[in-house]
């Protein structure tokens, strides 16, 4: 009785430690463990015994491909769905992260959560630009871009359905404030003229965006004169002169935000303090890095939770499937295992070999799942409504970290699915097993 409950306790501990290790340990540590294991198998007597039994077990796989494929496909499904969903979150987040920089700061009105809910008057714009931490160009003008973002209804390519594009009005210094923005076709818009340049993703998504064409926004015609690339969120936007766009959208002379280029990244704290201590200003300051990261947080969070919930439920199904298959495999090998134990192999060796077999199958499943997700979804382009109530176009991104994450899940499922059948095999009385002969 005592022995039995002690054994139960040991099993629970093994499960907790095994799963905890698979989830908590970084990928490198897991790889290190795998190397240690390989050394143990290669160099010690017990290890070599274990290795040879594992190999002989695996060599019987073709005879029971049905059960093996349940383990592999079940886990491939879990990992495929997990990786694909996380790739969406990663791609979205990366798009926003690439937009920000530690050397640029965005100034909003106190209490505003995003540009759309912010408002700054002309005097504030001038005061912000006057701070000494703001970099200046050769003529001594501050590198500050007063901006408004408005959402406008335009027609999508393909479906012809209405979509919403963000139109950003930017100041004349924007090219120096955001030096990574490159004109890839046509030219810059001219301040004072109703001209628009389109981000490269917006150009793919919306109609009437080729250079030279005219697009109607808010009832007025605007001429498309160029296309720009930036490798960030701005690629989904249209850009034009801040004053004209403010007027066209009835904003008067007020803007929403001012983005400035700092003299160097370390100047941020001083800049923030200077603005906070100015009694004429009611503003809050963030680096654009922090601002754009916070803008993507909500969506990324939702997708990550969705991915985890869906994959967890699928994982329960996959564990049950793996348990069934491995119990059947153990039952089919009853005689073999009993014989091994009769000629002196220890129970631990048997447990290890069955566990190893399941985890290997699981890893294969995980790799297949990740591969399918990669083939179908890497660089898959999607569009959603972003924080400015307008389209954000981004690409799914499958990184090595995500694949590692998927493989961890597959190891955990394989471990759970193999452990109990392995224990049953090892604890079966040898005489019972041999009786089946």
């Amino acid at each position, binding site marked *: 009785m005592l022995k039995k409950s002690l054994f139960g306790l040991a099993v629970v501990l093994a499960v907790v430690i095994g799963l905890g290790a698979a989830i908590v340990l970084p990928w490198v540590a897991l790889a290190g463990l795998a190397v240690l294991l390989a050394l143990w198998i290669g160099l010690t007597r017990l290890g070599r015994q274990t290795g040879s039994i594992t190999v002989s077990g695996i060599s019987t796989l073709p005879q029971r491909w049905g059960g093996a494929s349940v383990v592999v496909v079940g886990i491939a499904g879990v990992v495929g769905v997990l990786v694909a969903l996380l790739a969406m979150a990663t791609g979205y987040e990366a798009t926003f992260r690439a937009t920000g920089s530690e050397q640029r700061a965005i100034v909003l009105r106190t209490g505003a959560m995003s540009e759309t809910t912010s408002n700054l008057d002309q005097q504030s714009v001038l005061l912000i630009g006057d701070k000494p931490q703001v970099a200046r160009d050769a003529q001594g003008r501050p590198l500050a871009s007063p901006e408004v973002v408005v959402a406008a209804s335009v027609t999508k390519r393909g479906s012809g359905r209405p979509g919403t594009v963000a*139109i950003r009005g930017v100041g004349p210094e924007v090219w120096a404030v955001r030096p990574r923005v490159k004109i890839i076709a046509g030219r810059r818009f001219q301040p004072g003229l109703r001209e628009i340049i389109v981000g490269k993703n917006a150009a793919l998504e919306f109609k009437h965006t080729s250079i030279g064409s005219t697009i109607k926004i808010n009832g007025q015609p605007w001429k498309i004169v160029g296309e720009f690339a930036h490798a960030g969120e701005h690629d989904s936007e249209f850009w034009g002169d801040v004053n004209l766009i403010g007027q066209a959208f009835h904003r008067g002379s007020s803007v929403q935000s001012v983005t400035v280029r700092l003299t160097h990244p370390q100047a941020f704290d001083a800049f923030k303090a200077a603005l906070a201590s100015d009694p004429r200003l009611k503003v809050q300051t963030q680096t654009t890095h922090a601002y754009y990261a916070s803008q993507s947080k909500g969506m990324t969070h939702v997708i990550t939770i969705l991915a985890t919930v869906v994959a967890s439920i699928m994982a329960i*199904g996959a564990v049950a499937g793996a348990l069934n298959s491995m119990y059947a495999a153990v039952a089919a090998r009853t005689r073999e295992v009993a014989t091994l134990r009769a000629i002196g192999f220890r129970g631990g060796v048997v447990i290890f070999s069955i566990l190893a077999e399941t985890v290997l199958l699981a890893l294969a499943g995980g790799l297949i799942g990740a591969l399918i997700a990669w083939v179908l979804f890497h660089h898959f382009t999607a569009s959603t409504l972003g924080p400015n109530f307008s389209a954000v176009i981004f690409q799914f991104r499958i990184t090595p970290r995500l694949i590692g994450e998927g493989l961890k899940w597959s190891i955990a499922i394989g471990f759970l699915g193999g452990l109990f059948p392995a224990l049953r095999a090892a604890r079966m009385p040898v005489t019972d097993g041999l009786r089946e002969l």
Partner: protein
Amino acid sequence: MRFAHLLWAGLTRRKGRSVLTIVSIAAAFLLFGLLASVYGAFTSVGRNAAAAHRLVTLTRGSYMVGLPVGLYGKIRAVPGVRAASYVSGFFGTYQSLQQPVGGEAIGPGYFRVFPQYTIAPAAWRAYRRTQMAVLAGRMMAKRYHWTVGEQIPIRAPGFVRRNGSAVWTFLIAGLYTSKPRGMENAILMHWSDLDLGRAAHRGRVDAFLERIAHTRQATEIARRIDALSANSSHETKTQLSSALAARTVRQVADLGLIVYGIMGAVFFTLVLLSGNAIAYAVRERTPEWAILKTVGFTGEAILAVVLGESVLMLVLGALCGLALARGVVVGLNLRQGPHVPLAPVAQLIWVQGLALAVLVGLVAGVLPAVRAAHQSVTEGLRNL
């Protein structure tokens, strides 16, 4: 039905395996139920009876510019429009940046267009005669512990007041409830208070709302409303509320792709998994099929028994999974309110789920069933 006991005996023969298989099936159908519920919540936004009788008029330009309130009189006079109103959105925060408050500034006639609100008569009277009064949704009031008669300061940097401040102080005149409950997470204020108070955008509304008698008149009435402002600087687009909701959901995400993608992966795995479990069960009973045949069972009868067992297992699992999904949805809706958009696990979801279960059961069972039915008696008995 004659075979019922045979089916049951087959299922309970290896309880452990059956339970594990049913757990897998239940997991698949739990996911099916939850995803169908989320999908249903998004696609049915505004697909209720009220929304089928409500038109929404938006600007063809930018929602940030909106439409002139002066259109209201003309819209009300359009034949077929039973009642009309207008709204402007209002967004701010209460006490801290982490406590958002969404609201709508509403014009006259609003509650004739939205009959799904319930307001106590006393609250309604207090709201009507008080300046800067708001009606708070029950959920929002509960979240921020607001009480009737309380003054609430809302910081709204996007709505600067004429005196330059961005803080609006409202008086809570009463609470409202609504169906669906998601609409209780807001405040409703007088549009005139917002418009008189704000520095910019005066005289502009985000949308006009019209109630019509019959859905089939929608296209014609919408055309008439849009004709009012054709070729002006504020052209409008009028559509059914349900159509607008569907369009917005489409812009947020191609939910269909995500949901069908996941379900595709899940059910492909499920067919393989349950097929394999049935195959095991059939294989280990090889002698028994032979015996059944010897005592007079036909091949078709054995085919039916195996298929029946497979379908029974799937249906049991599906029932467990769907019941679990229902429990989760009910639990989350009670606790979280509208944070997780979940529609109740509707009849349609049960019907679809069970139909899927039968289908998967047939597909998974067909190969083992054919094998059992075609197996020769002598071959089978040899293994005895």
